[in-house]
């Protein structure tokens, strides 16, 4: 027996849940958990959220929403404007292109796909930062954040899954 989906889900206020949650997680990334030195270990919650919602409800996370979340992150994190915007747009492009290959597969496959996508996006962000700043950017902090983000995917996706089942 299939679950009855409310008409509110796609077009009503509940339809904004993925974008709202992603924006909330983006703001959560700014919290001073351990402050300055520890900010390197804060996982990229916005990227996890975007990937999760695109994999489960792609229509509720359109290009405009990805661009808006990315722009907000660029402004709040004080990184070159357009960087996170571009990364989240590419994340959407990647997921929409590859979703047919991993949709319906188990969580470990989703996790692996996310890790591969994230490593490509972090590599691209390293190239962009090096070009924008005109100097080779250190790789180690970026690699550490990729690792932390990749490992954080499972618990964060689990919580998002609970929220999705409860709300949508």
């Amino acid at each position: 027996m299939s679950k009855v989906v409310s008409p509110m889900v796609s077009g009503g206020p509940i339809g904004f849940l993925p974008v709202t949650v992603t924006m909330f997680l983006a703001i959560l990334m700014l919290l001073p958990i351990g402050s300055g030195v520890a900010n390197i270990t804060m996982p990229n919650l916005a990227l996890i959220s975007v990937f999760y919602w695109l994999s489960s409800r792609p229509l509720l996370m359109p290009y405009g929403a990805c661009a808006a979340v990315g722009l907000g992150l660029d402004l709040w994190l004080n990184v070159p404007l357009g960087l996170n915007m571009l990364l989240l747009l590419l994340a959407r492009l990647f997921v929409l292109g590859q979703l047919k290959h991993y949709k319906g597969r188990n969580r470990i496959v989703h996790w692996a796909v996310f890790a591969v996508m994230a490593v490509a996006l972090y590599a691209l962000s390293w190239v962009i930062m090096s070009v924008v700043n005109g100097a080779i950017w250190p790789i180690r902090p970026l690699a550490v954040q990729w690792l932390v983000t990749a490992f954080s995917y499972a618990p964060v996706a689990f919580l998002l899954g609970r929220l999705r089942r409860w709300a949508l």
Partner: protein
Amino acid sequence: MQTARLSGSGAGARRANRGRETLWFYMLVSVVLLMLEAFGAGIPKQIRAYANDFVAPILYVLERPVRAVQGGLERLAGVGDIYVENQSLRQENERLIQWREAAMQLGRENDRLRQILKVPKREVPPAATARVIGVGGGTFERSVLVGAGSSDNVVQGYPVVDENGLLGRVIHAGRWTSRVLLVTDLNSRVPVRVERTGALAIAEGQNESFLRLRFLPRGTLVQVGDRILTSGHGGAFPPDLPVARVSEVDEEYIYLEPLGFLGQLDYVRIMAYQAVPDEDTVFSDEEEEPGE
């Protein structure tokens, strides 16, 4: 049936086309923004500062439970050591009372000598004391967001310290918030001197928890444990602020451990020090002149 399928696929194709157009539009916007940043014509700093003001109230609310949990954990961890800590604090207090007397005597003597020699005082008044409400940069920048802005007389370029030493300087001042670039950031360069020898150098941030000492004169001997203070050169920071301690010396580099408590920032002091006028002020003055 076939007509319906055809019209259905037509709507799908139209939607796909629209999606592709939207993607290219946003891609173009992001690439243009990145190119503006790369060629140095990025958006005005004030827009970033106001963006921080916008998110500050949410951060104020969200950071409370985080602080509460952190405080609770620290208290729990400290309960076991409370007796030993109390003993060492008593001993330290006795030593500090003696040091206080000596310091007060030296201070009085210093004041008298300054008066006689007509040397101006070097104390820098605080502009504001603010709470750290957010961090920034992720992997790319070491900065924090503090809850004081231009409404608290905070100006871009002001040095920021805690009770242990220099933390960084204000790079954007919004109305109610400011962004502080930490000394550990890759773009941070602090003119310093070695306290023991007086040798001048530059402390460079590495986007790591340590700094590196560079441009030290040849033949200067540096030991692990040496304190590094601001030299005051360049006018960005007042002289004699503690910055770091030498933590490791190898054949290639000298590594420094920041003295400011960067890992657990809570409250910070923003100092009203601006020896050199910042470039925004200079440019705005220059722009105003022809119209006068």
